[in-house]
């Protein structure tokens, strides 16, 4: 296992504007293998923009990316995927009319000659699901339309893991789920980290964050309010970081927080 002190992905001094609106101010962000890093912040704090910059959807204005210590430039979604960065978006990118195997391999199908290699895809899909200890799926040949919200989220996550990914970014994976399903997905998030992936969890839900995260990065109006160890803070402190940018001696200096407004 890689040294926990070396982040697999590190961003320093990232700035991003859309026209006159500055969305990200000198953002530093790091994710570590085997750890769940929660990215929290209010609506409009810049979480989604930051993720899209990492995924190569938006180019950054300035700032540096380091992947496993070496500087990289991420020019597009394909390059992000090639590095091993997979994003599971909130509105799950699954096709209802295809089964689990077909969805997991969508766009990267294995073939023998011109014919799809269904057998090998089915075996790999099942192996991946087993490795993540997914226990709720009846059959890997089930249509995705017949799955529950939690199972769909599970498939979307498993799809990201299938590709030897090193960084898995989950955008609000529990937003639309019930209690039991949320539990399942959070367990899966934890297992993902335990199998050595660097996991980024974007969430509004403090319960979720405190259940699975190892580290928390709070964004406040496009700035990083604080990077903290989960064990070192309370839920109240994190909520203050999200809503006011500071909490006691944590977070942005009072003047910075004021100026940002």
């Amino acid at each position, binding site marked *: 296992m890689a040294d926990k002190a070396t982040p697999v992905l590190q961003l320093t001094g990232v700035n991003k504007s859309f026209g006159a609106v500055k969305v990200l101010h000198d953002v530093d962000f790091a994710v570590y293998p085997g750890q769940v890093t929660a990215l929290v912040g209010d609506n409009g704090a810049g979480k989604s923009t930051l993720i899209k910059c990492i995924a190569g959807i938006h180019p950054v204005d300035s700032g540096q990316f380091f992947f496993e210590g070496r500087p990289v430039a991420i020019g597009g979604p394909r390059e992000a995927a090639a590095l091993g960065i997979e994003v599971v978006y909130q509105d799950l990118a699954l096709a209802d*009319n295809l089964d689990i195997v077909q969805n997991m391999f969508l766009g990267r199908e294995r073939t023998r000659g011109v014919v799809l290699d269904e057998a090998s895809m089915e075996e790999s899909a099942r192996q991946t699901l087993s490795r993540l200890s997914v226990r709720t799926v009846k*059959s890997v*040949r089930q249509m995705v339309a017949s799955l529950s919200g939690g199972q769909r989220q599970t498939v979307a996550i498993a799809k990201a893991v299938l590709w030897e990914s090193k960084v898995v970014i989950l955008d609000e994976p529990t937003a639309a789920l019930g209690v039991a399903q949320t539990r399942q997905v959070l367990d899966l998030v934890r297992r993902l980290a335990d199998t050595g992936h660097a996991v980024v969890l974007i969430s509004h839900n403090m319960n979720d964050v405190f259940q699975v995260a190892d580290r928390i990065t709070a964004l406040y109006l496009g700035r990083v309010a604080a990077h903290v160890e989960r064990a070192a803070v309370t839920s109240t402190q994190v909520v203050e970081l999200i809503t006011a940018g500071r909490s006691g001696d944590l977070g942005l200096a009072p003047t910075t927080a004021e100026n940002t407004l």
Partner: protein
Amino acid sequence: MSTHSHELKEAAVQVADSDFAIDRREHTLSSAVRDYWTRVRAGELGALPSVFGLVALILLFTVLRPETFLSERNIANLFVQAMSVTILALGLVFVLLLGEIDLSAGVTSGVCAAVMAKLMVETGQPWYVAVLAALVTGLVIGAAIGLLVAVVRIPSFVVTLALFLGLQGITLRLIGEGGTVPVRDDVIVALANDNMPIWLGWTLAVVCSAGFAASQLLRWRRQRARGLAGRPLGLVLAQIAVVAAALLFGTFLMGLDRAPSPLIVLNGVPWGVPVVAILVIVATFVLGRTVYGRHVYAVGGNAEAARRAGINVTAIRMSVFMIASTLAAVAGMVDASRLNSVTPDAGAGNVLLYAVGAAVIGGTSLFGGKGRAIDAVLGGLVVSVIANGLGLMGAQAYLNMLITGGVLLFAASIDALARRRRAAAGR
């Protein structure tokens, strides 16, 4: 080892359908039938409506017209009439899989047939040059539709409605008002009017049955050997039996003498039938076993998911219209062969309605993402039985239109209701 695996199986059953229980559990015929019935109730109707419809219609017309409907001659007619509808519907399946529509497919077939006929009659080109030109014409029309739909992003309904009118103008210009271009080339005429020798018909039927059986059994063995999800052997064998029986029985029927006079012998499978069969087999292979086919389904199911998965959605959209229009060209030529001529209204009128009806009756959804090549065959037969039966009844034109329109609406309603059931069954 066997007791161990047996215990595992028991345990899997106990945890009630989780942990890939269905994949691991030994499928029996009865459990497979139960699963099938559950799927039907959840709105996965498959070939059920078209097969039921076909049986019901055959019974109905047999009762109403006992002498003529099941006569050898009429059955042969029915197959010949079904050929062009089926080919047109086959192309439309690709378009419908994306949730798009091609209203101009019928008139495209007319333009292509006119191009073919004019080249042969007026410039004396050999048949293969004329056929190639017709196919290219179809491809070009499809590319134009595809560009306007996929790149310019005009709804396919509007693009093809405009072409529905415009292309009729082209056919009229090519042939001239009130004109007719005769088709006398032996090869083209043979397509719908000549029959294969009896021995060749039987050989093809046997080869096709054996090929189907081999591919199904090999797949079953591979799935079983590697512990993959599969169907029980009994079901596979039953399906092979049904397909082989249908092929052999059809060949037998076509082998009967159907000449109107006892002085001549007229029997055998029409040459057009293997043409349709090859097209359907190729389309089935492309949709079911290739990356391209998988991507067509993905774009039809969730275009955004397909885009994020790195699929070139624009190219897929363009390609289905090119396939549909090229197959329309084939349908036009088959029709020209059947009628021995091309008229300015070739492919107009209710041709497209029949083809869309065929695809939808066969089980292809108008909402995209669901459909198979074989749907075109089943639906094409249903539509042809209706048209043929109504013809034998001497139904008046107004009644014919009313009934055909009604059948399409009925099929679309079943599609919409089944879709609602599927949505309710999911989640």
